[in-house]
């Protein structure tokens, strides 16, 4: 792989990072508007409110960038970047299509992806602490506690797929995929997707940022573009989570389309899952902090362990 090739791949990942979350955001506006009868976002710009997202962007860009007087300036300003960067790195490793249609095929891909996603928690902790605000600190600590708890079921569910495929490499896992993996790994898929939702602090699990209770948790003091960066990292997180679930559990580029159009199939599955994420936001009530923790430790982790056992048994049965 020469330098130009590498640069092009990095650039492609960056472009995906900057455009796809916006598409998901626009979809969220429209889906929420239809599901909840919200009229506001349907008017801006005429047809179906297409300009709402543009208006949002302009709004974020023209807001003043404020750092609270008592805040730890550097850490406060650095936090959004720390929250966003892991998702960019993860996107580099997600395979989109067959024959090396991937930013960088990493030998221990699934391990890399889950390890790097774990760094995002530092961004929230930094933001919460550096804001010099009790509610932000509380939000940051809640975020950290939640992310630490939900990382374990996610890793266990990922381990189950890696065990089934016999490799840690993401393209390798998709290559090994057969259609009957979907029922076989269904529990793991549920655990992975749900834990991922909690990692993103999306609405059924958005206790740390609960906008009606602790006003936005770690991000209370953020304005303008830095706040937009946190939002972008949330939407990039949706993209990454859906793409990973597609690759690990839904067979990535496998589908009825011809082999050369595999990337299209991956995108379709990813966006279908993104729709589910939005749907969950609109329809599920928020969990309370203790319910949230109980769900992770008493439901998801036992389920993930069960899936591991199931994978092991069937794997041994097949290989004989």
């Amino acid at each position, binding site marked *: 792989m020469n330098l130009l090739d590498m640069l092009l791949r990095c650039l492609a990942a960056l472009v995906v990072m900057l455009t796809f979350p916006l598409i998901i955001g626009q979809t969220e506006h429209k889906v929420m508007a239809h599901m909840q009868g919200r009229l506001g976002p349907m008017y801006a710009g005429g047809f179906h409110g297409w300009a709402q997202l543009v208006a949002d962007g302009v709004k974020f860009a023209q807001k003043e960038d404020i750092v609270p007087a*008592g*805040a*730890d300036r550097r*850490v406060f300003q650095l936090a959004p970047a720390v929250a966003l960067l892991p998702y960019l790195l993860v996107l580099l490793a997600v395979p989109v299509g067959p024959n090396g249609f991937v930013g960088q095929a*990493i*030998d*221990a891909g699934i*391990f*890399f992806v*889950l*390890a*790097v996603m*774990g*760094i995002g*928690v*530092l961004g929230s*902790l*930094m933001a*919460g*602490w*550096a804001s*010099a605000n009790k509610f932000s*600190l509380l939000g*940051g*600590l809640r975020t*950290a*506690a939640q*992310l*630490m708890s939900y*990382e374990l079921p996610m890793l266990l569910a990922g381990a189950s797929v890696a065990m089934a495929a016999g490799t*840690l490499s993401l393209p390798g896992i998709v290559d090994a995929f057969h259609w009957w993996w979907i029922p076989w790994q269904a529990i793991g898929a549920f655990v992975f997707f749900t834990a991922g939702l909690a990692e993103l602090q999306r609405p059924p699990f958005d206790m740390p940022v609960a906008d009606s209770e602790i006003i936005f948790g770690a991000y209370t003091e953020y304005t303008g573009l830095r706040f937009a960066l946190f939002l972008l990292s949330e939407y990039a997180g949706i993209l990454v989570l859906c793409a990973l679930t597609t690759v690990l559990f839904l067979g990535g580029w496998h589908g009825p389309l011809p082999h050369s159009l595999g990337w299209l199939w991956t995108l379709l599955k990813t966006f279908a899952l993104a729709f589910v994420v939005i749907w969950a936001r609109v329809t599920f009530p928020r969990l*309370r902090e*203790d*319910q949230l*923790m*109980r769900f992770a430790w008493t439901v998801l982790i036992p389920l993930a362990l069960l899936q591991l056992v199931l994978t092991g048994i069937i794997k041994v049965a097949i290989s004989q």
Partner: protein
Amino acid sequence: MSTLLAAAGSLAPASRGFLSPTGVEIVFVLVGLAVLGSALISVTTRQLVHAALWLVVALGGLAIEFLLLTAEFVAWVQVLIYLGSVVVLVLFGLMLTKAPIGRSPDADSGNRWVALGVALASAGTLVTLVVDAFRTSWIDLGAGGGSTAVTGASLFRYWVLPFEALSVLLLAALVGAIVISRTGKGGAKPRAGKLRTPRSVGAPRPARATAAPEQQER
């Protein structure tokens, strides 16, 4: 271990000069300097949370060093465990107990010179040992030398027993920690998931009055 070494290349005597720089080695040294610098800042800064954040930089740099040594798996383990969990727990503890924004001079330790001595002594021992052990040997870092397959094979073929012993030890420590943190009078804890409603605010609570001194003792 032998397969690991075989995959990583032979321990042939150096046909090249001691530390003749290639691109990778230059990057290695530069990253090493950055790690050293951030580690120094981490122990000298007066701001507790900054110390933990510089530790993140130092540990991340170490992960890059592992990558440059083609030990890919170890690098990601470093990221997952040290950056994603240990430092987060350190930060968590600091923020929950005592981490004002700005300097905290009362957190300075009086025995910093002793600490410096111990650090220098252990660093000296390690450097002497490593230089003495590998002085004339040269490992060719071929691709895949530290890959997951090689690491896994080495770990689960040759080192299964230590691995399992370590797992049992960690499990025992985990169970022990849970037991210690749960001792005390059972049943007094609020059950998770049940919303605790304050019972009749303002009403006299005779049962509590007798229990209060006992609670203070704990």
